[in-house]
């Protein structure tokens, strides 16, 4: 019995890892969408986290906990730099700036010797595993649920519904926008570091436009009424290409189609559920 489980886990190892990693990425997309903004920097932040962690491990042999912290801090700083000026501007600026960030980082990673250029970095030791990845995901989910059912969660949904009305109730719009962006960056960076340390190999192609839009498709499929929605979306879109072989080759086409269909026909995503926003019995 245990042998079967072992074999099963071994063959599907990278798939199971992917479920956890993509779940974290979906949450990083969720936090920004939950306040009504659009950031496409998740893939870029993931790349920053991945490269930061890989370099710290490979070149400095830094202790892993420190590596993880750094992989969250570096994207957070990047988020501050490109996010701060857009706080009082229309949401379009943030969206464009984050797309631009992805492109620029890709160029930087490809052209830099430090990051191994187009070939990326390999030989990254395996320092993460199921426990770590899924604990991070679980903790993140719990944190989001706790925050959703509170004053902060109410402010976030209010902003998403009607930013002007929310401002008129005292919600400090710029602060919430920046915080959401920084949290999003940190989560994505963490996902990148964890991924790097189970995949042993990273390259600039993993963090480009395709990845950014794919992450969006997770959130839109699952729906953003609750933090569970995007995670469910990630699980479905990660498993589906494995189960349906033809889908595998057209995975990206499918993800793009999902986004189009979701925006045009299912603004609430697959899941009609919505998390309640009170922290005590109402």
């Amino acid at each position, binding site marked *: 019995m245990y042998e079967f489980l072992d074999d099963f886990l071994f063959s599907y190892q990278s798939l199971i890892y992917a479920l956890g990693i993509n779940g974290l990425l979906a949450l990083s997309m969720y936090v920004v969408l939950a306040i009504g903004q659009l950031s496409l920097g998740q893939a870029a932040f993931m790349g920053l986290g991945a490269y930061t962690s890989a370099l710290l491990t490979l070149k400095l042999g830094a202790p892993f906990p420190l590596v993880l912290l750094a992989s969250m801090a570096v994207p957070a700083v990047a988020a501050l730099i490109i996010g701060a000026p857009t706080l009082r501007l229309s949401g379009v600026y943030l969206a464009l700036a984050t797309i631009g960030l992805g492109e620029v980082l890709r160029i930087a990673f490809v052209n830099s010797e430090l990051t191994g250029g187009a070939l990326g970095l390999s030989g990254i030791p395996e320092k993460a595993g199921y426990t770590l990845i899924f604990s991070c995901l679980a903790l993140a989910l719990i944190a989001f649920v706790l925050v959703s059912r509170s004053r902060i969660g109410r402010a976030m949904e209010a902003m998403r519904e009607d930013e002007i*009305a929310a401002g008129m109730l*005292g919600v400090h719009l710029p602060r919430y926008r920046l915080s959401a962006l920084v949290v999003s960056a940190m989560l994505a960076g963490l996902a990148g570091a964890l991924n790097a340390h189970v995949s042993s190999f990273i390259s600039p192609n993993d963090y480009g436009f395709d990845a950014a839009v794919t992450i969006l498709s997770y959130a839109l499929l699952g729906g953003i009424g609750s933090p569970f929605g995007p995670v469910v979306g990630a699980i479905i879109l990660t498993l589906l290409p494995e189960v349906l072989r033809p889908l595998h080759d057209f995975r990206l086409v499918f993800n793009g189609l999902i986004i189009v269909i979701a925006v045009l026909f299912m603004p609430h995503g697959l899941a009609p559920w919505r998390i309640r926003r009170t922290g005590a019995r*109402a």
Partner: protein
Amino acid sequence: MNGAILALENLTVRFGGLAAVDGVSFHVEPQTVHGLIGPNGAGKTTAFNLISGLGHQNDGHILFNGETIDDWPSWERAQRGLARTFQNIRTFGEMTVMENVLAGMHAHVGGGLGATLLRLPSFRAAESAAIGKARDILGFVGLADASARRAGNLPYGDQRRLEIARALASDPKLMLVDEPAAGMNPSETASLIDLLLRLKARGVTLLLVEHDMHFIMNLCDHITVLNFGRKIAEGTPVEVRSDPSVIEAYLGTKVAERLEAGARVR
């Protein structure tokens, strides 16, 4: 002038070449209902937007409780006690009635990130207290039974009440109410008048924009009249309704002349 809860001094805002609000000055006394009326396009909603922090004036000042608030963003004004309802109702449709009112209390409910994540007793106490207060407010506006309903599903009149409840939840000293009676039938309007009078009794100062003259005349202690962005008259309801320039603004010059010549104003 001293002790006025709100004062506009020579407020001017221009869009392109047109002055939507042109050198308007008036002040609102605390614990009164102050009406802001005028024909369509007179600049009333623009003035409201400026007072609540949406948009930037070209000239003049806005003083709230004696402090100049020109540069304050809307959330800061809200935190200091200025609330507002909107002409086209802007409740948070996806959230429940209770959550809408709780959202209104944003500036006053405790619970930072740490307490929220760790679910400290201080957080739970703050939430329970907030919910209790929200229930009171819902009772006050007559929506106690609807607290778990999705706000977007409420009938129009109730959504208006919810918006007022939400604004009231922010514990305002001054509430800007923008055309509350729009789209309401006579009985809804009557209960709305009752609600606003009870608000006034509770100590909230109201600055009211409305077209329904019955509404205005019954509620307001003092009225400012705008036309083409300028203030053309000011005074008590009785004074304003018989002011020739007001009549002219609403009904046109011919009617005003005929009225002066002896016809009655009803």
